[in-house]
């Protein structure tokens, strides 16, 4: 009996010890990572937003005034982008008249622009050479959305993927495509008919002496 008890005890002892060897051959740990890539379009004007043309001499009326690098724009974008420009109205807004004759409804197109970035490969509506800036109606821009007639500094209307947008980039890394120097020119002539304008004045075809302003809109958008 004693022998039996001793054998059972030793057997139980080994049984108990044998239960201890539960090997874990591998283990895992995890990280759950999320990433939010925001679409970023930054348009920066690095010059004075106001550009003045003051015609005080006959020579200035006849030869015109050219403002070189009057506006400089820088684009930083994480998406494919387009940059287009238009006048916010169809005509210049008269603030004050200096005379009683002439036409106060000066079309926006009397202002000419030229860009340092050649966009001619993307669209014929470009500013590779001095070109009249289109007024709101002629530009076709509706609610900020460009149309076929809209003039582009970079890119073009449409999303076909072939020559219709500029690649993501920064002005510091890609100055040739992301940094724009805009020249502006106005040539009134005598009488002030602005012969370079693509839109003629209706009624009296010469400008009324006075003080006018025009708002030019530069719009940076995702490839549209």
């Amino acid at each position, binding site marked *: 009996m004693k022998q039996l008890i001793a054998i059972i005890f030793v057997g139980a002892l080994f049984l108990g010890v044998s239960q201890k060897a539960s090997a874990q*051959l591998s283990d895992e740990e995890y990280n*759950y990572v999320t990433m939010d890539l925001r679409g970023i379009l930054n348009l920066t004007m690095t010059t004075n937003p106001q550009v003045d043309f003051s015609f005080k001499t006959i020579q200035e009326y006849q030869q015109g005034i050219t403002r070189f690098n009057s506006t400089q724009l820088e684009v930083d974008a994480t998406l494919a982008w387009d940059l287009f420009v238009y006048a916010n109205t169809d005509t210049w807004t008269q603030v004050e008249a200096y005379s009683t004759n002439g036409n106060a409804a000066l079309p926006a197109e009397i202002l000419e622009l030229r860009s340092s970035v050649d966009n001619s490969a993307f669209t014929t509506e470009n500013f590779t050479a001095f070109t009249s800036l289109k007024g709101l109606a002629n530009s076709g821009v509706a609610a900020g959305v460009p149309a076929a007639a809209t003039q582009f500094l970079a890119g073009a209307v449409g999303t076909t993927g072939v020559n219709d947008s500029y690649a993501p980039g920064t002005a510091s890394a890609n100055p040739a495509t992301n940094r724009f120097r805009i020249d502006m020119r106005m040539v009134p002539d005598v009488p002030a008919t602005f012969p370079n304008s693509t839109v003629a004045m209706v009624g009296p075809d010469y400008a009324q002496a006075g003080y006018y302003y025009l708002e030019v809109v530069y719009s940076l958008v995702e490839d549209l």
Partner: protein
Amino acid sequence: MLKRVRFFVLLNAMLSLCYLSHAQSVSFALKTSPSINFDFNTIQKYVSGITVMNVCELNVDAVGTQWDLYVGATTTVPGLWDVDAVYAVGGAVPPINIMQLQFRNASNTSQVPSFFPIQDILTPTYIIGTAVAPDPAVNCPATGTNQAGNYMVSPGCYKFNVDMKVIPGLGLQSGAYSMRIDYILSQDL
């Protein structure tokens, strides 16, 4: 009857002895499984990236065996982040290798001493050991330390701080993405 009982008890004891080998196990202690978000909302972050130090801490407890430690990404499409939402139509889905990891400890035992791009879990990066087993034994505090040990006794060799860095650059599709990073600790078999 007594003889039969003796026989079964002895048989059981012998079988138990067979299984009473040296106890072997590997495990991460103090599991945390943290989540982390990288939010790119400025051009500078896109270009310079975002670095987060000490995202997690891996505490290794290896008993009676050599061990391997490797890491990889698990996603629906191998090699690409999982797409949770899209904000724009252009650009490419980010590849997982824009995510870089770095494993640090006091003894610099990681076989990959600096930031490295993550790979899919099917082709993981070995921090300790290799895919070939068994590896040569390496004792603490040498690079590649893979001998049995414990993070509480030798933290310089058995505790790893993990850093993360993501540099997306420009040209990727705007959106919300995710991935799971797997850290595998396994017996060197």
